[in-house]
């Protein structure tokens, strides 16, 4: 649906929602949360060390976005791109902080490799998490957007603020690095070429 606005021309639903978000309309923020939480969670999930950390950082993304909403210029920028940008920065800060003080050993103990009697799917997620963290930030991002969030090359290019060719190139290098990493962990579905 589109709405005629004599002052600003036609505004899309997304732009109207963004306008309300800038005004800190709680209902608008409720909608934004419902629309984007899963994507934000998926985006941060394998950059971090577990689902609990992802839950926390994904929640922080919305809190930071709300707090800084007066700075958001929604003209031409999808809300998702803005949230992904915040998520990227929060992950970066979080990883830096952990690097400085070391991971909490208690969490490490219980979120490390799952005990062998668990489903293979869990092992896969653990392997994947380790493999993802071995990639560069750009590579992690392109794989998260393309495969975990199921975004097209075009959408990924817009969210990463890059050309489509650059995304295709990055995607190839990222998949190759991921394949090497999974193969080095003897993951059965990723034999060396």
């Amino acid at each position: 649906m589109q709405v005629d606005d004599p002052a600003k021309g036609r505004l899309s639903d997304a732009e109207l929602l963004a306008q309300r978000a800038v005004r800190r309309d709680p209902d608008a923020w409720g909608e934004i949360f419902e629309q984007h939480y899963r994507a934000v969670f998926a985006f941060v999930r394998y950059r971090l060390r577990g689902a609990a950390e992802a839950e926390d950082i994904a929640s922080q993304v919305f809190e930071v976005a709300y707090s800084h909403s007066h700075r958001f210029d929604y003209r031409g920028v999808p809300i998702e791109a803005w949230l992904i940008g915040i998520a990227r920065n929060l992950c970066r800060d979080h990883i830096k902080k952990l690097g400085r003080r070391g991971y909490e050993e208690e969490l490490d103990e219980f979120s490390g490799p799952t005990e062998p009697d668990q489903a293979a799917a869990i092992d896969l997620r653990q392997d994947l998490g380790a493999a993802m963290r071995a990639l560069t930030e750009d590579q992690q991002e392109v794989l998260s957007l393309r495969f975990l969030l199921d975004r097209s090359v075009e959408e990924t290019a817009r969210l990463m603020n890059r050309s489509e060719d650059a995304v295709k190139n990055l995607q190839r290098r990222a998949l190759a690095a991921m394949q090497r990493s999974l193969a080095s962990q003897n993951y059965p579905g990723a034999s060396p070429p």
Partner: protein
Amino acid sequence: MTADRFDDLLARALAAGAIPPEATEDERARLASLLQAGAVLEQTGARTHLEASAAMPAARARFERFLAGEQQRALPAAPPRPRRGFLGRILHPNRGLLLAGGAVAVGLIAIVGVFAGESLVTGTDTASAQVLMPNDYVQVQGVVKSITPQGSTTLVELQSEFADVKLVVSPDTSVVNGSGGQVSDIKAGEMLLVGGLVNPDQTVAAQTVAVSAQKQAAPQQSRLQALKKFMPNLQGRVILLAVSKDGSTARVLIQAPNGTRYIVNVYPRTAERLLTASSTVIGANVLVSEGEVPNDGIFALSESATPAAASGCPVTAATSRPAFVGVCGVIAARMGNVIFVIDANRITHRVVITAQTRFLLGESGLTRASVREGKSVVGHTIAVTGGYGADGRVIANVVVVGKLFSPAR
């Protein structure tokens, strides 16, 4: 084969799910390997969305609390009192009274200073400093004196039995009532039971707050004495429990029947036994006994008999006082940071371990290093103290891992 051509072939192969027919033999081999990695990612993507959906209720509740806090903060503040000019302040009608009051206050401070020279544990601030050590896990109880919203958190001043304690209640804090239900807000005058971690500034980052339905008078605060030498037949009621971050030291505050309050350093095993006997140690009646090494200033405590079941858990009696959420049983499985505990009634509880969860591994034979290296915790008895997350899962604040479960024991 150029990089651009291969990038294009890969993009098309991913979009179509099949290798384009014009790809050469060599390109096909490379594409197949990359598609395999892509398939692994896609397979995980579906599971990640399930995880995200499972995380949503708690995250939504957190965000709603955040929005409510922000809106509260945005309400217009009370207008500031008009500031008087210099002459106005000097000639204020109450000025003489204020000056006289100030002089009396200075005199009182001097007198108190002289008398307090020896008894440094008397002041409530000092008492707080003596028992609230940074990074400790503590259980404490008191009556709410004041509540100050601070952005997404709330500062709650609690009048406890030994000092005024400042609590930081965040959106992550589990606030429950006596029956374990969620409570939306905390009010002045309510009795709270708090479990949390001591911050460097001696505020307590509340992990779980249990609110009592019954209104109670604010407790009297009195001088604390550190128990250095064993006193036969010393009994008392626990008013604070503190356990260090690595679980190597612990102490309790007890109030003896004559009203004297003692700081008692106890063995870690004692803290473990108390936490296994009940998730809520505050209010337990204990008898102080001499430690393993006489005169080392560390003591053991025994609680009035709590029968232990075969699983190593106590048989708990219903109680009307506020209590933390407790789960006691045997670890059946672990998936990442979630452990599955089967209790004596064969009910399975999902317990979430967070970065703030404290572990006491004493009787388990496990060490932090051995668990990190892959030693299994499955089959060990466990006693969990914590609260409920918004999605109903138990969030562990402190965990006592016991011996391997043996039905014959």
